[in-house]
């Protein structure tokens, strides 16, 4: 064990890793603070820059962007009433009224402290639980894996917002797109139509960048309304008394975030709202919530950030992404020749421990970056979009090309951008499309392998207790999401 830890420490303790994580947190915080730029978009655009890096460094860079992005979303939520990320929409409720009262600095300080504590608790839970879950998952055969992936695909319902049917439709499109290339069993061509570039299937990064970055760019150009709100920092920072008064809500919110984050598809926004409503319910002065109550900011941010580490539990232990960003990180693992899941805990445990060490450091970085650079970051958030979006377009071109060194991928990215834009205009969510595209080959592979074992009998999918467990979980998950979807007046479970 000690040998393993020292090996992991050697893997982790390099200047490159420390720097990559810091750069990631800064980039994430800046991007998260810019309304219109999303965290998935930031992670997607950072991905090509990790090609030349060792796996641990690359993954840490992306994790830094992820964690920074979640916190960054709260900056503009508090300062200009515009959440940088959907998960920060709850922070607006009390953050902006505080800024209007001239207490922006206090709100930002509490948001940062709550974010860091929640992030730390979330990371600890990841370290404690991922290993156990992976050990359990070692017993899985192809049928169990198939049912697990079917269950994880119910996260599509979670990322579809109030467009459940369209979300499932988009997922079908993603599954179909994933079938392009050589057949997994017979090696024959599928939807290749003589195009050599399609024989190995569509590359993940151009599809990802096309779906997440291009539609936002095009939408900016054709949009008549251009936001010009300027950020202003005012007031004094949070006092020790503020922290003391909020600590209960922060801890409660952190655990809510951890529990909801570990369930695929729930995401930061519902966790933030649940934590907020719990803080309000248990408060001595519930009427002050929504009017600039500092505890409201703390609860929302704790719930939101408590999710970040926990979403990595199903990713690392089972190879199943908990949300869109972890789906992108799963793609990053694959690009670096790694496959998260129970086998990784057997074969690459030192690498996992190295990532855990980096994740713990990210909480510290988040605090330092938030504390020292809040003024500068809030200014960067004012960069004119007329300069920002054309630059992002060029980043997309370089990023798409760099994967396989082929201009064909740039074309794929543009095409996916057009499809993504069409989906945006038709209110078809793109996140289910991407998640299905990533999980598609795994789903099909295990589906067909199971049938090969059972000689074509579907009974194999109901042959073990684990299969039944996942079928029941899937049914509950779908029933719950349909109930949420149909219930009037309830905010949909929307992920980032």
């Amino acid at each position: 064990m000690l040998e393993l830890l020292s090996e992991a420490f050697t893997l982790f303790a390099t200047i490159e890793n420390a720097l990559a994580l810091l750069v990631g947190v800064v980039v994430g915080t800046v991007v998260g603070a810019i309304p219109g730029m999303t965290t998935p978009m930031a992670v997607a655009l950072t991905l090509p820059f990790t090609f030349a890096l060792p796996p641990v460094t690359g993954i840490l860079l992306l994790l830094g962007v992820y964690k920074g992005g979640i916190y960054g979303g709260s900056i503009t939520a508090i300062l200009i009433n515009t959440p940088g990320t959907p998960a920060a929409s709850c922070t607006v409720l009390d953050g902006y009224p505080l800024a209007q009262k001239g207490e922006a600095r206090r709100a930002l300080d509490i948001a940062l402290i709550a974010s860091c504590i929640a992030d730390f608790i979330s990371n600890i839970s990841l370290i404690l639980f991922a290993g156990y879950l992976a050990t359990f998952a070692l017993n899985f055969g192809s049928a169990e894996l198939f049912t697990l992936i079917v269950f994880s695909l119910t996260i599509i319902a979670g990322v579809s917002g109030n467009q459940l049917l369209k979300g499932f439709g988009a997922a079908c499109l993603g599954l179909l797109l994933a079938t392009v290339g050589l057949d997994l069993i017979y090696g024959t061509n599928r939807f290749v139509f003589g195009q050599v570039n399609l024989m190995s299937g569509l590359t993940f990064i151009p599809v990802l960048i096309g779906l997440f970055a291009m539609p936002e760019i095009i939408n900016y150009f054709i949009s008549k309304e251009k936001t010009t709100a300027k950020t202003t920092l005012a007031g004094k920072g949070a006092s020790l008394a503020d922290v003391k008064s909020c600590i209960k809500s922060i801890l409660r919110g952190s655990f809510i975030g951890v529990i909801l984050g570990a369930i695929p598809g729930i995401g930061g926004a519902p966790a933030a709202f649940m934590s907020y409503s719990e803080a309000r319910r248990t408060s001595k002065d519930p009427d002050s919530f929504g009017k600039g109550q500092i505890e409201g900011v703390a609860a929302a941010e704790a719930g939101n950030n408590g999710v970040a580490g926990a979403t990595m539990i199903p990713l690392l232990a089972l190879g199943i992404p908990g949300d869109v960003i972890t789906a992108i990180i799963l793609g990053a693992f694959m690009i670096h020749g790694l496959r998260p899941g129970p086998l990784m805990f057997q074969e690459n445990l030192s690498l996992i421990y190295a990532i855990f060490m980096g994740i713990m450091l990210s909480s510290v970085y988040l605090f330092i970056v938030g504390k020292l650079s809040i003024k500068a970051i809030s200014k960067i958030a004012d960069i004119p979009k007329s300069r920002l979006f054309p630059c992002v377009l060029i980043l997309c071109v370089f990023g798409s090309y760099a994967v396989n060194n082929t201009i064909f991928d740039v074309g794929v990215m543009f095409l996916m951008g057009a499809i993504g834009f069409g989906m945006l205009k038709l209110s078809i969510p793109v996140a289910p499309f991407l998640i299905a595209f990533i999980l598609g080959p795994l789903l099909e592979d295990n589906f067909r392998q199971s049938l090969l074992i059972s000689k074509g009998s579907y009974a194999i999918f109901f042959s073990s207790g684990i299969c039944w467990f996942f079928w029941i979980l899937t049914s509950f998950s779908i029933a719950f999401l349909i109930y949420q979807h149909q219930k009037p007046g309830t905010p949909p479970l929307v992920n980032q």
Partner: protein
Amino acid sequence: MLRSERTRNLLSAAVFILLATAIIWIAIPYGVQEPKKVKFVALSPSYYPRLVSYCLLALGCLILIRSLLPKPLNPTNQQESTSRYQLLVPIVFILFLLYWFLEYLGFVLGPILALLAMLLLAGERNIVAILIISVTLPLCLYLFFTQVANIPIPGGILDPLLLKLQ
């Protein structure tokens, strides 16, 4: 354009149904190469995409039925048109030109020209900023990928010049 939720739903349903039908009856028969002998139907390379396409078709029909059913109007879903769709033409034109001439112009000159055009189209009027951004960003990205990440990026017609720079 695309003001009501119903129009968007109808269009989405049409897209799903058309795509599913095209995949089932055109793309699969012509685009999926079947092996001579398949052990079970479910193992055939076309089985899984066909299954997913049928699900897509069913979903398209469900959306169509739902959008045809009378439903009380939700004022929040009646969006005012705030988009300038005519701008799509120059955007597509610029992106098409960039893609088409990317190999010839290379990843420095091509993006410089595209960035110039896109900055102007985005409404940026500060000429100095336009020039600085257009030149420095593609050049920095080119140098990063070729020098730091060791990824060969084509310089196109500027290759001789860029090689001297490295």
